[in-house]
C-alpha cells in the first residue's frame, strides 16, 4: 500500500448507493443541448446551421485552436437552434440544440473495426483529436494534447488515474468492472503513442474488486497499485507523488517529470474512438445524493439536460437544496436543472436543503487544521484572510496562491466554517483581471 505523510482528508465516501449498480444506458432524450465550449480553452466553431439534419456521431462543431476539440451530434435529428443556453460551468453559453428523431441513426461507418496496430502514431492521434476525446475525470482537457508532448520532454511513465477520490462518484469504478477490455485496449494504444514501458494504474483501496479485475485484465501490461483512500488522492500531483515519489513543482506539468496521467474512463473512450470509430457522444455519469430517488450509474448522451437525467433516476426525493455537477468536493453548484451534461460531467448530485445550507462564516481561530491538511503545503488560513482584505499581491508572491488546486480540503476541515476556497477563487480572479489589465497597458 502506498501512502505518504499527512495531508488530505477522509470525508465519508457515500459510494455504496451506486458502487454495485451496473451501468444502465439511459434512453434517448427528446432533445440535446450541446454547448460549443466543453472545457477550458477555446470554444469550437459550429459547422451546422439551424434546420440541418444530423446523424449521431456527425461532426457539428470543430475545434481549431491549440487547446480545443471537436464536438459531435449525440442523437440523430434536426438542429433547431444555435443559441445561448444554460451552461453547467459558464452559467450561459452558445449551444447547438438538436431535436431527436428517436431513430438514433449513426453516421456511416460507425461503428467500424479498425486495426490500430497498423496505424502510425500520427494517424491515431488525429483520430483521437477528431473524435473529440477529452479527459473524462472532470477537467475535460483534450486528450490528444496530453498524448502529444513536446519532443524535448522525455516521458517514461503512463499513469492511469482510477483513484476516483471524490465522494459519491462511482463511474470510474463501474468502467473498470464492466469495460475492462476497452480500458486495456485504450491503454495499449496510449502506450504505443507515448512509447513508454512503465504503466501504473492507481486505484484507491476502497475498490479492491476493481483492482482484482484490472490485474486479471492487464497481466504484465501494467502494474495495478491500490492506494490509500484519501482525498485528493486522484489529483494529478498527488497520484504522481504517491505512485512514483516524484514531485511536480509549482508551475510544472506532469510531463516535466516524465509522466502522462490519463483517467481510466478516458482510456476506454480512446479505445472506442480508435478501434470502433465512435466519437465522444456519451459518457458514464453517477447520479446520486440524498435527494435522488434511485441513484444510478447512467450512460448518458452528451447534451441531455440534468432534468432528464434526474427523471431517469426516478426524479427527486423531496426538495433538493443544491444540484451539483461533479463530486461534492470540487463540483459546481447549478442554478437550474436545465443545464446539459457535457463531456466533463462525471456526476450529478442532488442534496437536501439541510445539507446545502450555507454555513455562517466566523473569524479564523487559527487552529491550523487547514494548514495541516492542505496537500499543496499552503497556508489557507492566511490566504482567506488576505482575500478578505483584498491584499492580492502578497497572496501571490508570499503565499503561493497559484499553487492552490481548489481541492476544498481546507474548507472541509475548518471549524470556523470559513469559505476558504471561495476566497481563494475570488483572489485568483482579481489577480487574473489585474494581469489582463497590465498586459493591456503594456501593449
Amino acid at each position: 500500500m502506498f501512502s505518504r505523510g499527512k495531508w488530505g482528508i477522509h470525508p465519508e465516501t457515500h459510494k455504496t448507493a451506486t458502487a454495485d449498480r451496473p451501468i444502465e444506458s439511459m434512453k434517448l432524450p427528446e432533445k440535446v443541448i450541446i454547448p460549443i465550449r466543453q472545457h477550458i480553452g477555446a470554444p469550437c466553431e459550429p459547422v451546422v446551421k439551424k434546420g440541418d439534419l444530423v446523424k449521431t456521431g456527425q461532426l457539428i462543431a470543430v475545434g481549431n485552436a491549440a487547446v480545443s476539440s471537436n464536438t459531435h451530434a449525440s442523437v440523430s435529428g434536426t438542429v433547431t437552434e444555435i443559441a445561448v443556453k444554460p451552461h453547467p460551468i459558464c452559467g450561459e453559453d452558445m449551444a447547438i440544440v438538436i431535436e431527436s428523431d428517436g431513430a438514433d441513426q449513426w453516421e456511416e461507418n460507425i461503428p467500424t473495426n479498425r486495426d490500430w496496430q497498423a496505424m502510425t502514431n500520427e494517424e491515431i492521434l488525429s483520430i483521437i483529436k477528431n473524435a473529440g476525446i477529452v479527459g473524462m475525470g472532470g477537467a475535460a482537457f483534450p486528450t490528444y494534447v496530453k498524448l502529444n508532448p513536446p519532443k524535448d520532454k522525455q516521458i517514461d511513465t503512463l499513469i492511469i488515474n482510477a483513484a476516483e477520490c471524490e465522494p459519491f462518484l462511482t463511474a470510474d469504478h463501474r468502467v473498470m468492472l464492466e469495460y475492462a477490455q476497452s480500458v486495456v485496449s485504450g491503454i495499449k494504444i496510449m502506450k504505443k503513442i507515448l512509447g513508454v514501458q512503465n504503466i501504473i494504474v492507481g486505484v484507491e483501496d476502497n475498490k479492491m474488486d476493481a483492482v482484482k479485475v484490472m490485474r486479471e485484465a492487464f497481466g504484465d501490461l501494467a502494474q495495478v497499485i491500490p492506494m490509500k483512500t484519501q482525498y485528493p488522492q486522484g489529483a494529478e500531483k498527488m497520484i504522481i507523488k504517491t505512485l512514483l515519489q516524484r514531485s511536480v513543482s509549482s508551475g510544472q506539468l506532469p510531463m516535466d517529470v516524465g509522466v502522462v496521467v490519463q483517467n481510466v474512463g478516458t482510456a476506454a473512450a480512446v479505445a472506442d474512438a480508435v478501434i470502433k470509430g465512435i466519437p465522444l457522444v456519451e459518457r458514464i455519469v453517477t447520479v446520486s445524493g440524498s435527494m435522488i430517488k434511485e441513484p444510478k450509474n447512467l450512460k448518458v448522451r452528451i447534451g441531455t439536460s440534468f432534468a432528464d437525467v434526474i427523471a431517469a433516476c426516478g426524479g427527486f426525493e423531496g426538495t433538493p437544496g443544491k444540484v451539483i455537477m461533479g463530486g461534492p468536493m470540487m463540483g459546481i453548484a447549478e442554478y437550474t436543472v436545465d443545464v446539459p451534461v457535457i463531456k466533463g460531467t462525471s456526476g450529478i448530485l442532488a442534496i437536501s436543503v439541510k445539507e446545502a445550507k450555507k454555513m455562517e462564516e466566523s473569524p479564523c481561530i487559527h487552529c491550523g487544521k487547514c494548514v495541516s491538511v492542505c496537500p499543496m503545503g499552503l497556508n489557507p488560513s492566511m490566504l482567506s484572510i488576505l482575500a478578505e482584505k483584498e491584499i492580492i499581491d502578497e497572496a501571490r508572491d508570499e503565499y503561493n496562491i497559484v499553487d492552490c488546486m481548489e481541492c476544498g480540503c481546507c474548507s472541509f476541515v475548518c471549524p470556523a466554517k470559513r469559505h476558504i476556497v471561495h476566497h481563494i477563487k475570488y483572489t485568483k480572479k482579481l489577480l487574473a483581471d489585474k494581469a489582463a489589465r497590465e498586459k493591456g497597458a503594456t501593449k
Partner: protein
Amino acid sequence: MSADNALTLEQKQAGIFTVSASPHMLSNESIPKIMWTVVIALLPAVIFGMVIFGGGAVQTVLLCVISAMVFEAMVLKIRKRRICINDGSAFLTGLLLAMCLPADVPFYLPIVGSFIAIVVAKHSMGGLGYNIFNPAHVGRAALVLSWPVAMTTWTPMTYSVDTVSSATPLGVLKLQGYDAVVQMFGGQADMYKDLFFGFRGGCLGETSVLLLVLGGIFLIYKGYIDWVVPVTMIGTVGVLTWAFGGSVGLFSGDPLFHMMAGGLIIGAFFMATDMVTSPITKKGKIIFAFGCGAITVLIRLIGGYPEGVCYSILLMNSVTPLIDRLCKVPSQKRRVA
C-alpha cells in the same frame, strides 16, 4: 419518458437551488465542539482541585465561569453580535482563569479577572479569533499585579496526606532553596509522587500532573492540540533547569521537579496550545514553545517571581504574529509543489 417520473414544473422550480463555491460537503468540526472538548479535558483536574482545596475552589470556579459568560453576553449585545455564549469559548476562558487562581481568593477577584479576560483581552481586540493574548492569562496577570498578596495566599489542602504546608513548592524553592522543598515533602521520592498526583499547594487547577497530562493526551488524540507544543515547552524547561538550576555548577539541577511544579503542565498543554494566540505552522509552534520554556526558566531561576509560565506565554503571544510571518507556509519538505 413516462409522465409520473418526469420532473414536474414545481419540482424544477422548488429548488431555487443554493449556488455556492465548492466544497459542498463539510466536516462536522466546529468551534463549539472544540471548546467543549477542551472543557471536558480540563474537568478531571478541576474536580481534583475542588476536592483537595474544598469549598473555596468550588466558589472560585463558579464565579469565574459565570462572570465570564455574563460579560461575554453583555459585550456581544453591545457589539450587536449574535449572542452565542454556548459556543463554549467564554466558559473555557473562565475555567482556565479559575484554574490559575488560588482557591480562596476574595470573591471579587474572579469577577475582575473575567472582566479583564473577556472584555479587555478578548473583545477589545475584536473578539474570538482576533485577540493576540491568551485571555485567561491576561486576566491572571492583571490580578497578580493588582492584588499581589491575595494572589499568593495559598489554601491548605483539605486533607493532607502528610505534613505538606500550603506554600507552593516553587515559592519555597525561591525563598529557602531546594533542600527546603525536599524537606517539605519529607523526602525526594515523596516529593515526586505528590507532585505527580497533585498533592501540593498551588493554583486550584494546576496541581495534578497526572490528570492534566491525561486531559492533554485526550486533546492530542482528538487532534485539537499539537503534541510538539507541550513536548517542546516542557522539554526545554527540563533541559535548561537541569543545566542551570542547580547550586553546585552545571547539570546539577532537578529537571523532574521543575517540569512538574508550578503551572508548567497546565500552561504547556492548555495555554501555549491556545489556537488563537499561538502560531499556525508546526515550525512556528516549535519556536513558540521553545520560547515559552526558555522564558519560564529565566523567570524561575533569575527573575523576581517564583513562577514564570504565565508571563512567558504572554510574552511569546506578543511575537506570534512575527513568528507566523517567518514561518508562512508549512515545512517545504511536505510540499508537493
